[in-house]
């Protein structure tokens, strides 16, 4: 993107002595450093504080136990299960569509109306607040299809919510593949399709994986879109049900629900423990995104980057 310089407006006057300017410059540098460091300190403080609060709550009976409705001592086992269950379903829907759409936009689509409209729709979809997407899911899956609250409805809602981000990840990964690779493949007689599937996608897979796993972390913690689609409960008889057509409260939803609606006496313990588990999962997703991305790039291209 070309940027044009904006000429200084009005009179440019020299202010202060050289020394004063240098002092200002140094002060500004120190302030900016302090602001940047404060972000790291704040994040570290959050993590330490959550471990301090929730560390004592983490036990096997909490992590794998079943939640209780009215008495203390409930666990979060089914909620963790549901979070992964909905996450995997969402990825199974989102990844194929997003990668296909991303490949089309980046490799095939010529500039024109169709491409512009797709891009604009994706950008609009990306800014739709998660709670609004939740209400759309409520309208479609609960009211129109009469599914009631289901894991499938939740996963489909999250698919719409995360599609634009994943498309963007795909497009950015593809655009980072140098054109010389494409030219070499076509020059050897490969068709465009062969070039994309055998040369471009393998080179982009590392970056794409990093992006997908980071987005997976966000899906794992998603709440507002799930309250009205996947519901606020787990099946009483069979909490680890594989059936997608049943209510599936996730861990993040459970944290909110326990705090705001539930009547169990140990709300703080469950909240602290759930928040810590969510935070640790985010850290895990972030680390594995990096490691996986690096490994795959190395395996498919022999490059480190």
């Amino acid at each position, binding site marked *: 993107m070309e940027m044009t310089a904006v000429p200084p407006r009005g009179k440019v006057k020299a202010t202060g002595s050289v020394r004063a300017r240098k002092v200002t410059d140094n002060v*500004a540098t120190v302030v900016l450093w302090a602001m940047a460091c404060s972000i790291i300190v704040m994040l570290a403080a959050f993590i330490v504080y959550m471990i301090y609060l929730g560390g004592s709550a983490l036990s096997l009976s909490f992590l794998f136990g079943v939640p209780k409705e009215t008495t203390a001592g409930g666990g979060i086992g089914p909620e963790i299960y549901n979070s992964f269950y909905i996450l995997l379903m969402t990825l199974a829907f989102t990844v194929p569509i997003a990668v296909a759409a991303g490949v089309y936009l980046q490799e095939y689509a010529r500039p024109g109306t169709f491409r512009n409209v797709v891009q604009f729709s994706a950008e609009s979809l990306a800014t739709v607040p998660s709670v*609004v997407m939740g209400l759309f899911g409520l309208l479609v899956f609960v009211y129109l299809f009469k599914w009631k609250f289901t894991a499938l409805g939740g996963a489909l809602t999250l698919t719409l919510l995360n599609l634009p981000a994943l498309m963007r990840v795909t497009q950015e990964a593809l655009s980072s593949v140098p054109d010389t690779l494409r030219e070499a493949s076509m020059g050897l007689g490969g068709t465009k399709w062969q070039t994309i599937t055998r040369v471009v996608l393998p080179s982009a897979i590392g970056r794409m994986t990093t992006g997908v796993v980071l987005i997976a972390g966000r899906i794992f*913690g998603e709440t507002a879109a799930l*309250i009205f689609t996947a519901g606020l409960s787990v099946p009483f008889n069979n909490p680890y049900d594989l059936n997608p057509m049943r209510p599936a409260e996730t861990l993040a939803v459970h944290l*909110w629900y326990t705090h705001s609606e539930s009547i169990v006496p140990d709300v703080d313990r469950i909240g602290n423990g759930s928040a810590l588990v969510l935070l640790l999962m985010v850290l895990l997703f972030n680390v594995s995104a990096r490691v996986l991305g690096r490994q795959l790039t190395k395996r498919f291209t022999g490059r480190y980057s």
Partner: protein
Amino acid sequence: MIAVQARRSHRAERIAVFGLRVAAGFVILAMLALLGYLAFEGTKTFYVDKFPLWQFLFSPDFAIDSGKPGAAVFIAGTLAVTLCAILIGGPFGIAVGVFLAEIAPLRMTQILKPAIEVMVGIPSVVYGWLGLTLLVPIIRTHTSSPSGFGLAAAGIVLAIMILPTVITLSEDAFRSLPGALKEGSLALGATRWQTITRVLLPSASSGLAVALILGIARAIGETLAIQMVIGNSAQFANGLFAPTAALTTEIVTDMPGATEGSLLEHVLFSMAFLLLLIAMVLIVLVRFALRKRS
């Protein structure tokens, strides 16, 4: 033989590309369905329940039982928390963006960028929980606020949540400036700070506008983090520490109890439709800012 194979693969390729096109078209379809369905459902307050639009937008009377669907309190709440968030998070985010683009040594970037990515990943409810257990008690003990819940708590939580968006996009804005701008300024004897404030900031203004607009979009749509700390009372905040409610928080608070087809449900859908329209206006603004830049 080879010709047959080539023709066959050509046809297979055409089918595959058609599949890709369908996937891209799905995005348009999804957006249209969302917009159409929410428009249909969100205007029922006006054409089924026959309330005038101005009453929804400007009346502060929100009492569904006595037939008063005024949403002005929630609209004002959304504007107020967003303003708080952008007043704190905006300058802070741009400053850190400048730092990353112009000052940070490689090692610092390697720490700060993953930290920012973790901040993006932390779920909304966990920010809400942190606000609830850390920020609200601090506000309760250090101000006259009896509960600690309210505008200030929500604004601060939101400011932290929009930081990653503002930082990343403003860093991009500074990085996309031509190097000659900075070199010219430095060569004329300006200090780094003078270069940043008088040359780089004005030149990057449209990119920074995009960063702020998308930060605002994030703040307006954020729900659970602020629902847990804002106090959820349907009244105008008469001070920074007074409890109030926003459009998103009101939807989450009352939707679980709303029956299908009731006035309350219609009004909540109208609020969701309003949020969607605001988001779309912001996207058009972003496009406008980007077009101006190129």
